[in-house]
């Protein structure tokens, strides 16, 4: 035998670079080679997409596609940790791909700087082996699910809000349910809270996104221990996680069932009654006579001190509020009795007007609807656009968040 002969399972450069994960049993050389031959699509380059892309790029995935139409903003940086201050204003999909390339030049990156919709999703997805749902809205979650089923691609789905996260693998194996098997009809748009309204902590999306990357590595390595058919619930506040065993695939599912009615992408904005983004929708629940704009309220309060009910959660109230505001949350407007509300507000039988304010003017309208039922003698009016409008039109030193 020649001293220069050897049998190599992997190239010298890959062996050197990935040695610490090659040493992990059940991953090893075959896992590494499979990962290198895998094309992964990340939809959403936000709080979840950043760790998914960063870990998969570092681990040596073959191809990484990134879909996002949005630009990096300053209020993304606390959780979207792949981005730097000097990238604010740049495209997220391009910025994340650039960062992955800087970390591992061996990864092929594909930038899809578009808003994913029914017209382009099939064409984009067909080139990938695994898809990661890292999006922030319900309509896009249904779109991604349906296209993954139609093209038979496993879907690693993560989501997070406030202190909580959820993680599952859909449509992976014959018994594995899809998102639609669990949630055949979409939630009422008014019950959906997104990160813009509810907030989210960086390490929560970091935890869920890192676990999504791990699920991708297990699928690529063909391990059988994925979260397919299971839903992991992560409660960061309590430091607890629970794994729920899910139902089996629903034979009557509209998309993955035995006789599917959905055979091509549908209109998801129509189906969900909500847009394919996480921006705030403007509700119109009240008649104009039950509303005032910020300039009108400015005049009213200058003339005389008013009763102002602030429906925001205490954490938002603490950020900033008008001095006359009394904090009674929307949930309290719902659960408190009329006499309890009166005493919290400090109103009496002489009080004729109460103004209601919130962050952006949606919850204040919901509150007016609840309050006028309980305290019929008072004229409740909401302040259109809430504190955000106040900050933009009346006092530019009022903190925007």
């Amino acid at each position: 035998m020649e001293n220069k002969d050897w049998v190599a399972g992997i190239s010298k450069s890959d062996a050197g670079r990935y040695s610490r994960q090659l040493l992990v049993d059940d991953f090893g050389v075959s896992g590494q080679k499979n990962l290198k031959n895998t094309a992964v699509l990340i939809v959403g380059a936000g709080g979840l997409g950043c760790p998914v892309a960063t870990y998969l790029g570092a681990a040596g995935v073959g191809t990484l596609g990134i879909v996002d139409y949005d630009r990096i903003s300053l209020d993304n940086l606390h959780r979207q940790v792949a981005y730097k201050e000097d990238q604010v204003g740049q495209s997220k999909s391009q910025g994340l791909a650039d960062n992955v390339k800087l970390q591992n030049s061996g990864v092929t990156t594909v930038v899809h700087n578009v808003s994913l919709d029914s017209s382009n999703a099939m064409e984009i997805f067909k080139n990938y082996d695994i898809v990661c749902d890292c999006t922030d809205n319900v309509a896009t979650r249904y779109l991604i699910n349906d296209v993954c089923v139609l093209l038979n691609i496993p879907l690693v789905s993560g989501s997070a809000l406030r202190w909580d996260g959820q993680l599952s693998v859909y449509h992976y194996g014959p018994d594995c349910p899809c998102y639609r098997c669990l949630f055949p009809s979409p939630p009422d748009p008014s019950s959906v809270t997104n990160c813009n309204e509810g907030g989210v902590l960086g390490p929560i999306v970091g935890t869920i996104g890192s676990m999504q990357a791990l699920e991708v590595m297990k699928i690529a390595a063909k391990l059988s221990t994925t979260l397919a058919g299971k839903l992991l619930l992560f409660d960061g506040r309590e430091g607890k996680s629970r794994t729920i065993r899910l139902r089996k695939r629903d034979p009557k599912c509209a998309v993955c069932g035995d006789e599917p009615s959905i055979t091509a992408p549908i209109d998801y904005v129509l189906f969900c009654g909500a847009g394919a983004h996480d921006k705030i929708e403007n509700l119109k629940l009240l008649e104009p006579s039950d509303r005032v704009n910020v300039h009108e309220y400015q005049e009213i309060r200058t003339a005389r001190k008013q009763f102002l009910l602030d429906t925001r959660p205490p954490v938002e109230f603490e950020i900033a509020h008008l001095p006359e505001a009394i904090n009674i949350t929307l949930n309290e407007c719902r659960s408190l009795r009329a006499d309890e509300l009166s005493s919290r507000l400090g109103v009496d039988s002489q009080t004729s007007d109460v103004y209601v304010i919130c962050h952006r003017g949606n919850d204040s309208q919901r509150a007016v609807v609840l309050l006028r039922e309980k305290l019929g003698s008072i004229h409740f009016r909401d302040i259109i656009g809430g504190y955000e409008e106040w900050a933009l039109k009346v006092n530019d030193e009022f903190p925007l968040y």
Partner: protein
Amino acid sequence: MVSVKVLFFGEAFQLVGKREETVEFPAETDYEELRRIILEVEKVIFKVFQKYPALSKIEKVMMLAVDQEYANPGDRFELERFTEIAVIPPLSGG
């Protein structure tokens, strides 16, 4: 009747205002009855009748899990003191 711990996740917690609550259920029950009792959990929490209970907002997407197992329509359950029921709506943020 048996007292069972009900856990509220995500939006369910936001709507009910509690992370968990002990609720009385018939020891032998089914999926439909579980849902009905849980929807009106405010009766237990606030001792008031609500025409539109808060959880009705997420009724369509409210997943139930009994002892960490997904509950299907039609399922029957024998509940015990340490049974745990989770109310899980989907999260969509990210």
